[in-house]
């Protein structure tokens, strides 16, 4: 597997991140968080994690480094978010909803790890590690 040159990788990450973030924004606008359980970001993070785990199965991702950067670092990295997950948990704690906060933070982590683990069962470990390795040339 060859690596993408850094300028190419930065452009691919930027373009993909833009698209992923717009997808996240659209979904959170459709499913406003209100004062309850933040379902939109929960599903975004769980489904986005599972799809990222599945990328090494795509031949185009293995063949063309910038495609992996675009889809993985870009689209799925921009779609999923740690900052909103953390901020929403803090907001729940701030409102005194400790149980919901614990369920949200713990539930997202467990569901995302379980989803990735299930997908990873179907993908050879060397392919997974190759996809995770730095895809950017020095």
């Amino acid at each position, binding site marked *: 597997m060859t690596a993408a040159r850094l300028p190419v990788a930065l452009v691919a990450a930027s373009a993909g991140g833009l698209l992923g973030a717009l997808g996240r924004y659209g979904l959170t606008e459709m499913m406003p968080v209100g004062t309850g359980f933040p379902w939109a970001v929960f599903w975004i993070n769980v489904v986005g994690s599972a799809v990222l785990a599945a990328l090494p199965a795509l031949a185009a991702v293995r063949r063309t480094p910038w495609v992996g950067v675009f889809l993985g670092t870009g689209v799925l990295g921009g779609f999923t978010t740690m900052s909103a997950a953390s901020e929403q948990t803090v907001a729940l704690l701030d409102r005194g909803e400790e149980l919901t906060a614990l369920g949200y933070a713990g539930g997202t982590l467990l569901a995302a790890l379980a989803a*990735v683990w299930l997908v990873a069962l179907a993908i050879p470990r060397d392919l997974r590690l190759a996809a995770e390795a730095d895809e950017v040339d020095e």
Partner: protein
Amino acid sequence: MSVLLVAVGAAVGAPTRLLAGHLLDRATHWGTLLVNLLGSALLGWLVGHGVDGRPLALLGTGFCGALTTYSAVAVQSVNAGGLRGPGYAAGTVLGCLAMAAAGYDLG
């Protein structure tokens, strides 16, 4: 208008995460951890200080949202396996929670 601001923020946040990972990720993903911690602190600070509307769309939803990532953490964690993998994921979530709380409370 907000859509455009989310797009601009994300177009900067995502390549910043790539650069941090490229420079700092080793066996432990220090670069990914760093951007997740910083992005969570910044978003906590913005929300805690009542920033909303267009500035939040640009800096929060766009920049912080794309600077940080959940999917990479989950995949890196499962690939690492053993105790190290889940430890990294749980440590990231707890660390980012603490950083978001610190930013939020400063308001």
